[in-house]
């Protein structure tokens, strides 16, 4: 195997992975006039981005947006390893910073997200606020402090002087939601938007949650196949139309 073949293989794997994550791109990809824009997006954007991409494609005929969703840190490390993304949408600025040298221009903040308490339907443990998550008799799960949602949870708890007593520190929001939805945990700390798209789960709002807002930056990558298109996508995200869709999904403006 030659030296040149290795990156090609890696790229092929990445594209396969991206294709597997989106259902909407399958039909357009075959047409020769189609231009493809590959977007790596934080998992929390999964549902809202479908609607945004549909509008963007409507405004840019012949363009197909292929989105790959995963945890921001996973995506960042894939980009560092050379995955062929055109645009990166991160769920926090720290992960965007880890790939600062591969960006085309500065990141643009396009949304913020705040924490809320997710509880199983019916709220069996009668959780009313963040303080209940310090009670060991309430089985609570949070994200590990190493990942953005966990870091945000720690900051918010510290502001309220609450010492969290989690039964588990999960890898990502999806795992927290899974534990809560299954009734395995009585409460979990997740983003407002996560509760909006989960079933079997209710939200218990946290007073002053906006003190710790997670900010979502978007950036075009220096290696983008069509830098103008990538830049246009980033601009579209920060525009009014996209902001309206994001607001409907629970995201706040930056």
């Amino acid at each position: 195997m030659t030296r040149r073949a290795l990156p090609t293989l890696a790229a092929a794997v990445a594209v396969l992975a991206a294709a597997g994550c989106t259902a909407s791109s399958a039909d357009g990809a075959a047409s020769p006039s189609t231009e493809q824009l590959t977007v790596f997006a934080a998992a929390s954007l999964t549902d809202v981005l479908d609607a945004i991409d549909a509008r963007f494609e409507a405004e840019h005929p012949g363009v197909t947006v292929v989105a790959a969703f995963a945890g921001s840190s996973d995506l960042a490390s894939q980009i560092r390893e050379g995955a062929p993304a055109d645009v990166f949408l991160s769920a926090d600025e720290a992960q965007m910073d880890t790939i600062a040298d591969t960006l085309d221009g500065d990141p643009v903040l396009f949304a913020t997200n705040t924490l809320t308490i997710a509880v199983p339907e019916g709220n069996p443990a009668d959780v009313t606020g963040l303080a209940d998550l310090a009670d060991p008799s309430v089985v609570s799960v949070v994200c590990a402090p190493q990942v953005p949602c966990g870091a945000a949870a720690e900051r918010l708890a510290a502001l309220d002087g609450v010492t969290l007593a989690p039964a588990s520190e999960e890898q990502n929001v999806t795992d927290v939601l899974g534990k809560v939805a299954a009734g395995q945990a009585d409460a979990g700390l997740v983003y407002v938007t996560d509760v909006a798209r989960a079933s079997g789960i209710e939200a218990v709002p946290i007073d002053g949650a906006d003190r710790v807002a997670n900010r979502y930056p978007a950036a075009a990558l220096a290696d983008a196949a069509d830098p103008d298109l990538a830049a246009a996508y980033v601009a579209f995200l920060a525009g009014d139309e996209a902001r309206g869709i994001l607001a409907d999904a629970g995201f706040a403006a930056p």
Partner: protein
Amino acid sequence: MTGPRWLAPLAALGGLLVALPLVGLIARVPWSRFVALVTSEDALTALGLSLRTSLAATVLTVTLGVPLGFALRALTGALRGVVRALVLAPLVLPPVVGGLALLYAFGRRGLLGETVGGSLAFTTAAVVIAQTFVAMPFMVVSVESALAATTGRREAIAATLGASPTRVLARVTLPTLAPALATGAVLAFARALGEFGATLTFAGSLAGVTRTAPLDIYLLRETDPEAAAALSLVLVAVAIGVVALAYRPVRSAS
């Protein structure tokens, strides 16, 4: 038996496919920090937990898997095939599916109810159960195939000598099964050590309680990919050592 020549390039390709990822892993290990990384408190906590839970799972696997192997051997015809397929299913189940299945059986809202589920949720015992679930098939297969190779003649003669079934099992059958038991136990241990998906889904992830080495590696990727590589290498070394031990050529001693 070497086969036709054209097998050789395919064999080389197959070898590369297996070896290259390991080489890649080794290439990423920060050797100057290696010892410090794998002896850090977090790493030792995770490795220690992995070791303890895997040993416990191996003991459970022997205690339950050997009788299961006997029971399987006692079945006949199509029923044996069906039961064997059921018992072996964890071997081929996607780990997340295994985790969900465990959740629905042993979770707080599982078949066994809140009392059992609640006392297991997010405990080390849940890790051991998940590991036993995935490791058991190795023992059952080992025992069943070893039993298939015996005629039952010695057991029958032992009975005519006045031995109770328990004595026949302990003094006649088990000694002849010893090599199969050892192989099964070693493979079960290795499988338990590598268990990830079911643990993550079912048991959660908390340092010292449920965060085994594979879960720690998964989390470490977020903050310190090099540390993740170092810890991974430890698990790779253990896995290779264990498999080499289990599959070493046995001198014929029947």
